[in-house]
């Protein structure tokens, strides 16, 4: 609230410049007592800055929607049974991987039902991309899953290349795979760290950030940015490999395998960690397929679907790597799959470095891109699952429809089936093991 007016302090002898203002101000307030204007002292009751101690009504603090429920599922969720209560694991929470609101219906500590509320990070990326030209789309689509930006750009350029029938040079493809796999390792290392942090272990995340920092510095030497890379272009990549990148990569590769084993061992061999993850949030094969889950979460439930093998793109047909699959489907399996994937990515990076061809890194394209009218779908395997882009072109220089399919979106949907029956503490284990990134979920 603004402070009440004070009379000006009497000044000592001052230079003449301010004498006028001082003498002008002085007579008005000379002898005036300190008055408080009533309007400032008691602001209007409608002022939202004031919170009075009103009678606390029972519906003031419930997350029950203040509008009548409109759907069957909403009505079912928002009716409380006997002894149940709502708990808002709200958008402001230290461990919800971003601004995610989970409305939990609890009976004591046991979760009966969960209703995730999204949209706190919705930025209208699809609409923005409809008003941007094709080069600008790549920049706009970066901050979706900000931890692995290159994997957002990849399906976009893939679908645009299909629309425009552009042939990407082989060197560019290899560079794409190399940078992508590096970023996959970085994202998975961070995943392990955040999983441990949500369960209470303070140390693994800092070890994970060491790895991530090294990889991100490498990619900064290559692309110019540490996080939102804006590196892929339609028809190639923006800039060839340089000496600093290669030297950093060499340094890192010499100790990467050992470091990964050490970081993974910090969690794998920790009895408390394993007991909290085993058997928690089990997603069986039929449910995983039914929810449309992709990526590590699907492979942990026994379905060996990896876009790099199922529908190969880029130079993956030439590279040798396994697709790790596990049958249990619980949080521990999801975690272990990510660790296996890091090892596979290291193999892929090795092969890329050995087989890197020479040549241009960018195809020749006109300045103003106007593809023929048509439709294209491009999908890649990101760290969290299958990222897809459905692009419709109408002949102008802006995409007519730019649809982004984000894996975290469908992965998070499984939470409604996985959480009920577990305890409140398992919320964090399950949500963290699914690896959601709210930027991608909310687009």
């Amino acid at each position, binding site marked *: 609230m603004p402070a009440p007016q004070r009379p000006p302090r009497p000044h000592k002898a001052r230079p003449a410049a301010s004498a006028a203002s001082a003498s002008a101000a002085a007579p008005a307030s000379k002898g005036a007592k300190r008055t408080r204007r009533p309007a400032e002292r008691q602001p209007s009751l409608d002022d939202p800055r004031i919170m009075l101690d009103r009678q606390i009504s029972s519906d003031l603090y419930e997350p029950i929607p203040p509008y009548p429920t409109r759907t069957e599922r909403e009505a079912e969720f928002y009716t409380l049974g006997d002894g149940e209560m709502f708990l808002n694991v709200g958008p402001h929470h230290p461990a919800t991987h971003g601004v995610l609101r989970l409305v939990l219906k609890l009976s004591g500590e046991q979760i009966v039902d969960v209703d995730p509320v999204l*949209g706190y990070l919705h930025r209208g990326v*699809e*609409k923005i991309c409809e008003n941007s030209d094709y080069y600008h789309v790549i920049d706009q689509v970066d901050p979706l899953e900000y931890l692995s930006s290159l994997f957002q750009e990849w399906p976009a350029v893939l679908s645009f290349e299909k629309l425009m029938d552009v042939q990407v040079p082989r060197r560019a493809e290899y560079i794409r795979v190399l940078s992508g796999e590096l970023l996959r390792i970085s994202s998975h290392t961070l995943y392990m760290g955040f999983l441990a942090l949500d369960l209470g272990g303070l140390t693994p995340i800092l070890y994970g950030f060491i790895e991530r920092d090294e990889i991100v510095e490498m990619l900064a030497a290559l692309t110019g940015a540490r996080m939102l890379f804006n590196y892929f272009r339609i028809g190639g990549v923006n800039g060839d490999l340089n000496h600093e990148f290669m030297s950093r990569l060499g340094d890192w590769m010499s100790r990467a395998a050992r470091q990964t084993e050490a970081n993974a061992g910090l969690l794998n061999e920790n009895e408390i960690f394993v007991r909290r993850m085993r058997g928690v949030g089990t997603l069986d094969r039929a449910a995983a*397929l039914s929810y*449309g889950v992709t990526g590590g979460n699907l492979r942990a439930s026994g379905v060996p679907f990896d876009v790099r093998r*199922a529908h190969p793109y880029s130079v993956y047909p030439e590279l040798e790597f396994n697709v790790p699959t596990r049958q249990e489907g619980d949080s521990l399996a999801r975690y272990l799959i990510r660790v296996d994937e890091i090892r596979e990515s290291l193999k892929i990076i090795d092969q890329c470095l050995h087989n890197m061809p020479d040549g241009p890194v960018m195809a020749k394209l006109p300045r103003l891109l106007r593809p023929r*009218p*048509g439709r294209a779908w491009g999908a890649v395997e990101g760290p969290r699952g299958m990222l897809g882009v459905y692009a419709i072109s109408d002949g102008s220089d802006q995409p007519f429809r730019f*649809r982004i399919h984000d894996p975290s979106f469908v992965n998070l949907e499984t939470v409604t*089936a996985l959480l009920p029956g577990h305890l409140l503490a398992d919320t964090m284990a399950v949500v963290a093991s699914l690896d959601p990134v709210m930027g991608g979920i909310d687009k």
Partner: protein
Amino acid sequence: MDRSLRSRLEARLGEYLRAPVYQRNDETEIRIDPGAVPDVLRLLHDSVDLRFEILADLAGVDTGEVMQVVYHLWSPMSFDWLRIVADGLSREDPRAPSATFLWIGAEWLEREAYDMFGIVFEGNRDLRRIFMPPDYTSFPLRKDFLLPDDAARSPGGGVRHVERTHAPATLADDPGTGIRRAPVS
């Protein structure tokens, strides 16, 4: 480009297809009526030689004249992506059957299509807004959506002149660049 897929699709879904099976690069596209969606999806999912078990995407599209719902599926029996375009939803009252009987994950994808376009999916138990606040009154990704228009209707109001009540524009030429938009098929 999977030729055998084309013949298998024509054999299975003959009477449902509204246009010839269109293949380009590594995608196969079929067009159906919205009412046929449950039957077609069921056939694609359950047939032994098709087995499209993985739902890759469910999107809404506003072409300016009509609305579409576009499904992308994948099967281990074919190397192509299958795109199913359920064409011909009216822009005033777009309705389509829901795919949640086959894939539970379609629930949130259909919520997103409803939120962005207003397409009502019959059979979806939970068709409410997912990104926008629950009392939002417009559908953002439609082609006739203008932000000042929406701000005038929203409770937040908008104090600047450009955010006040405003007649909505019709979809003609793009006012920004003047590019005449080609009809989208």
